[in-house]
């Protein structure tokens, strides 16, 4: 991949504190460093506090969560709140629906974005640059402009309240972001490899499948991660295209859970917090497992654009 990963590069010192030359300044530099760490830690706290508060709230009892002043940490950890999420609302069903949609859409997005990117990198055809420019400009297209006719189209096809509107479009190009990312990567694979295979009589499908894809592991992983996040967390599509509880995804299910009293009358804030954590957890875990792919994906598509 053409981009280097920011984290592994030596830092270019932008301030006097970090350039070695001034180390003789001593005390001044020391306090500069202390200030920097203080700011970095305070910022980290500001970003983390809401998570901490959500976790803490999710483990409180209905009484404790409404206590003033609030307790920072529950006296007794009520893990049963998490079980209650599944007892009160069909969350297992929501998870299943989301998994099915996410997996199928991911497969479609990866395969079709890779195929399109391959077409744009390895073949010369009239209008190639113009078409690629159109691909890129669709990144700027706000969803609102197409949502009404798309809804009418899916309604005409009788796809409303099925998973199809959330899956099928992924098989058609997979989105400009991913096409661009994969194209950038494919361009770094030496053409000699395809040429050699071509001389041996390999078809373009074979070259794509046996040479390009196996060499693109990291780029495919990046696409897979962002594709997962996109579909797992999608809100507007399911909101518009799904309308019965048995079809809901986690996002819509969580909102449904929030606005719908279900059977219980008691305050359910703690359970709502637990449900939010269940919904957010896969994305957060994914980040910890695959951090380097995040940076790569953002930097390639952001900067090289």
């Amino acid at each position, binding site marked *: 991949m053409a981009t280097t990963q920011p984290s592994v590069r030596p830092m270019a*010192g932008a301030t006097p504190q970090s350039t070695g030359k001034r180390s003789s300044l001593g005390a001044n530099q020391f306090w500069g460093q202390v200030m920097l760490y203080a700011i970095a830690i305070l910022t980290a706290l500001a970003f983390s506090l809401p998570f901490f508060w959500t976790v803490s709230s999710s483990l409180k009892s209905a009484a404790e969560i409404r206590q003033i002043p609030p307790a920072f940490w529950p006296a007794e950890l009520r893990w049963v709140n998490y079980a209650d999420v599944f007892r009160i609302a069909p969350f297992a069903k929501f998870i299943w629906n989301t998994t099915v949609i996410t997996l199928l859409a991911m497969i479609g997005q990866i395969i079709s974005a890779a195929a399109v990117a391959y077409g744009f990198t390895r073949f010369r055809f009239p209008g190639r640059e113009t078409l690629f420019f159109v691909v890129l400009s669709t990144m700027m297209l706000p969803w609102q402009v197409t949502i009404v006719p798309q809804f009418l189209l899916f309604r005409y096809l009788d796809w409303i309240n099925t998973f199809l509107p959330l899956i099928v479009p992924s098989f058609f*190009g997979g989105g400009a972001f991913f096409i661009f990312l994969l194209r950038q990567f494919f361009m770094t694979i030496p053409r000699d490899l395809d040429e050699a295979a071509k001389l041996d009589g390999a078809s373009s499908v074979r070259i794509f499948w046996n040479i390009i894809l196996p060499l693109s592991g990291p780029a495919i992983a990046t696409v897979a991660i962002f594709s997962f996040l996109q579909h797992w967390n999608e809100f507007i599509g399911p909101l518009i295209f799904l309308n019965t509880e048995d079809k809901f995804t986690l996002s819509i299910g969580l909102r449904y859970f929030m606005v719908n009293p279900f059977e219980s009358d008691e305050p359910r804030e703690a359970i709502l917090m637990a449900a939010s954590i269940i919904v957010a957890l896969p994305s957060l875990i994914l980040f910890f497992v695959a951090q380097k792919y995040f940076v790569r994906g953002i930097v390639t598509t952001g900067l090289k654009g």
Partner: protein
Amino acid sequence: MANQVLKPRTSWLGSPLQRREALEGYLWISPWVIGFLVFSLGPILASFYLSLTKYKIGGTPEWLGLANYQQAFFDDKLFWPSLWRTAYFSLASVIIGVLLSLLAAMLLNQNLKGKTVFRALYYLPSLTPVVALAILWQWLLQPQLGLINYLLGQVGIQGPGWLTDRNWAIPAIILITLWSTVGGGRMIIFLAGLQGVPKELQEAAEMDGANAWQRFRNVTVPLISPVILFNFILGVIGSFSVFSVAYIATEGGPNYATWFFMLHLYYNAFSYFQMGYASALAWIFFVFIFILSYLQIKLSDRWVYYEFS
């Protein structure tokens, strides 16, 4: 003679070999072409046609000409307020957000130990799914029981009603947006840009006696100005499309205080089923965003510096 026979026949499309290559190329990109026609271009054109009609689901479109646009600009009492509200939100969240992202990136660009841990902690909020984000902050900003007002109380400030207060609802949504975007992709992009600023330039400026601010203003900013522009344009498009947080946390309330343009469009389309009118709103939005992006790129000639141009 023999030469002429052996020479491959060429048409305007080139040699047979080139034609074959072109054909294969078109085949490979055909999924995108079909997707673009069916899910992007087709709907854009269809929505333009619909915007000129009165169309309720189940009926037939009834030709209206420009009446929908006239209604939006002159008769719809929610139209202009929703647009101003969105502009207010967008301006504040983009300017503050881009600035804070740049500051966070500059902080991470220092020689801090545990830099990757800090980067991860700053980035995590941007991964929170939007529904969880809205629920979590609704709880944090709860006027009586929320943590934010409790902490404000500790330092002697009587916290406002936030999402339940007409005047504080938009600032609350700006706050939520900042939390979930400042450390996200925008910061990572700034960080990569900062790391591309050559160390020698900084040192040369320092040698010439430039202080930290002058070096930032005259070396760093010009060199990362294309990144700043990129983040601004995407920020404006993103913030003008503000929908989900407001829809989930306030449903446009209290008393229309967070009734952003997209909520107006959404309710017209999917609650009142005024598909024609909603399409007109979508087109107004489209043209508006287009002009805004164009202006930003035009104005950027004056402050964006491209190294190789």
